[in-house]
């Protein structure tokens, strides 16, 4: 769950003025949160770490652009991370299409980053096979603890469209897991 720190807008203002202590406080809270999201999205630990670090680096560089009236810091950071994940997955997809055979099999990484449990393997696989938008919607609402409105804002869709994505994601997972659950 994302949660939030006390007086985040003030901390972000301090970061915009170059306060490293304020940044360390925010990074200490949000790096694992954004990292967890990136790991679930990308299933490649090194790429997830890059995305998490880049997201927080943008907080340092663009803190002056953050508007606390418009969205929470958690939403803002997740939005940056979401776009970085999409960029990474598109690049990987393009790279995989250009190279033969594929060299980066996500299933080899997932065992390392998720708690080892053989009975969960099928769900992991089903989750990784969900379309990107459905996977994003489910991960942001279920694991990151964001509201439907916040996730819709992050993904640039209406709340109604987001709910349809969640319904389809859950139906698909249930179908895949019918024998297991």
């Amino acid at each position: 769950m994302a949660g939030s720190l006390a007086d985040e807008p003030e901390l972000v203002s301090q970061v915009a003025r170059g306060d490293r202590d304020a940044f360390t406080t925010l990074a200490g809270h949000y790096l694992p949160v954004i990292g967890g999201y990136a790991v679930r999205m990308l299933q490649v630990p090194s790429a997830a770490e890059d995305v998490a670090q880049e997201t927080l680096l943008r907080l340092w560089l663009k803190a002056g652009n953050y508007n606390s009236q418009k969205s929470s810091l958690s939403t803002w950071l997740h939005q940056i991370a979401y776009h970085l994940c999409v960029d990474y997955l598109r690049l990987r997809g393009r790279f995989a299409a250009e190279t033969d055979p594929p060299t980066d099999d996500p299933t080899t990484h997932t065992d390392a980053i998720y708690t080892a449990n053989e009975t969960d393997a099928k769900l992991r696989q089903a989750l990784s096979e969900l379309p990107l938008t459905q996977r994003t919607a489910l991960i942001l609402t279920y694991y990151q603890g964001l509201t439907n409105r916040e996730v819709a804002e992050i993904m640039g869709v209406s709340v109604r469209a987001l709910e349809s994505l969640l319904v389809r994601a859950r139906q698909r997972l249930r179908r895949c897991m019918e024998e297991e659950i």
Partner: protein
Amino acid sequence: MNTADVRRVIDVYGGSPERWPNSVRASALALCAENAELADYRANAQRLDRQLDRLEVRASFDVAALCARLPDQTPAVVASRWVISVDKLLHWCFPTDRNHWWQPASAAMLSVAFGVLLGWQGVVDLRSSEDWTTEEQYLFSRTVATLDTGEFGQ
């Protein structure tokens, strides 16, 4: 709220009532308690939730490594320093105190001196690439001739 609405809530939010919106939780739970098919549907969703809960991430992230990558200053600080410098220069050139009249005078003198220096060094070439002297002398002589003969204005 009807059965279809509760199914929709379960499909969107899962089987755990704590994830449901506050506005529908009580009525949705009441309907689940009355309807066995709905209760079964919710139990199915809860099993999926439990599966999802077990997929925990074990990765760790190094805040110190991130802080080591930070540039010295944020762009906002650099920009604000530049703005402050320009602001100070403008205040010096255009002081509000009349006793500091020599400041704008010095700034003007400095600008003129800089312009003269540039011209003297030949940085700025004021000569045209084309020599119009002959044409100018011809036009001037025609004008004088016209005035002498009284043709002007006729």
